[in-house]
């Protein structure tokens, strides 16, 4: 067993959280509240020391008074709590929306629409390797059928009905893959904790 008190604290907190699997209890509640408190404290300290202090207050202290502008913009968010001047909050929100839209729209189109469309197009080069060609065809059929499933301007009958049903199959396969990966992720978290309890705490495994 580990002589390190921090390992023991970690082990007991892990067991406190796991105790919820049996039923809700005060040990679980203690662990949960402690986690929320510690996480809040960590974030406040990190943002103060790594963001607010060096990027704003140190700059103002050094005489860079242009930083009053972001300070005022930031403070305007708090005007929501003062009904008489709450309209001022629109200024920083407008600033953020303008900046965000300007920076995101071209990048989003390029990375997520044009490149993805390009990846769906089947060309003669796709069949240089026949296996790749087959997969390229499956991707094309999957994309088209899934899009048809979400086309609601006409009733899904006849050709539209058949293709949208094929689209549902592709969507279900996607959901199945996501579910499988989610199970794997959650089990990984359990394995990690068990490795910690059996290894560093109890010393039963390397």
């Amino acid at each position: 067993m580990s002589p390190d008190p921090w390992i023991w604290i970690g082990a007991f907190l892990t067991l406190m959280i796991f105790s919820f699997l049996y039923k809700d209890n005060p040990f679980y509640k203690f662990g949960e509240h402690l986690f929320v408190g510690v996480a809040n404290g960590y974030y406040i300290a990190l943002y103060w020391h790594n963001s607010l202090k060096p990027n704003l207050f140190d700059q103002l202290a050094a005489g860079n008074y242009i930083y009053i502008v972001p300070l005022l913009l930031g403070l305007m968010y708090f005007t929501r709590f003062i009904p008489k001047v709450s309209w001022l909050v629109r200024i920083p929100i407008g600033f953020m929306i303008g900046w965000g839209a300007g920076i995101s729209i071209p990048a989003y189109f390029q990375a997520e629409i044009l490149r993805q469309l390009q990846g769906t197009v089947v060309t003669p080069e796709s069949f240089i390797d026949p296996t790749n060609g087959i997969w390229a065809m499956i991707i094309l059929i999957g994309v088209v059928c899934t899009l048809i499933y979400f086309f609601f301007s006409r009733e899904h009958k006849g050709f539209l009905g058949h293709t949208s049903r094929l689209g549902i199959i592709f969507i279900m396969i996607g959901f199945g893959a996501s579910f499988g990966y989610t199970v794997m992720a959650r089990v990984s978290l359990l394995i990690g904790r068990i490795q910690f309890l059996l290894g560093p705490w109890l010393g039963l495994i390397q």
Partner: protein
Amino acid sequence: MKWYDIISKIDRRIIYLLLTIFVILPFFIPFTIPQNIMPQTRKLFDFVESIPPKDKAVIISFDYTPQTMPECRPMAIALLKHCFARNIPVIGVSFDPQGPGLAVEAFATVVDELNSCATSSSDSIMYGRDYVYLGWKSGRLAALLEMGESIVSVFPVDHFRNAVDSFPLMQRITNYKNISIAIILAAADYPIDWIRYPQTRYGVKVGAGLTAVMAPQYYPYVQTGQVSGMMSGMKGAAEYEKLVLDHGYARILGTAETGMNSQSMIHILIMAFIILGNVGYFFSRKK
């Protein structure tokens, strides 16, 4: 109560108990379930393998969190061993506030292990010469774009408050032109920002090491080549560990490979429960 009612209404606590037993057993009963290397993991390994030594750096963005350590930490360890063994400079950054402590721990683990076998300064791993950890930065979109012009302007000081331009490594690595690939180890949707901004604007190659929950979302980007390679969850980490071991860059397997035995056992158990539940449901409906 009929048998089909029993199997479709198993107490959840029994399921939890069986899950725990199935996770623990493989640690004490030695057996190995062979793991196939998935193409996206091999692509990432081959990409790092193709980077010339002591030339362009690899950026590793440590954006995972303590709860996702079982998946992402083995990726970080295997990746660092691979880069250091091939003399590829590494620049660590974090855009998730929970990343810094985990990044420092991962660097320390690998550097201590490699330096314990070193005989001279030339074959040891030195901070500032072979790697740096620049720390966490808020406002990641602006930071990601600005790093294309100058990394030092975004990170004037490193995580330990040293001037970044004083490091020999950072005197020759100025911006994305000197970066071979940025590999994002993430428990949240950080890699997409690297694809949208540094890749679209500066052509930065992007690799990813993701939690299994996020992996399906990134397959389309692997297919289009926007992601140059990807490790998916604990399985991806185990595959990368195996590749690193098989190529002689590590002496022992990491924690992901041992965890995969438990993972496989649990999957068998979950499949059995799904089948039992469906059989119970089918027979109860028939009645």
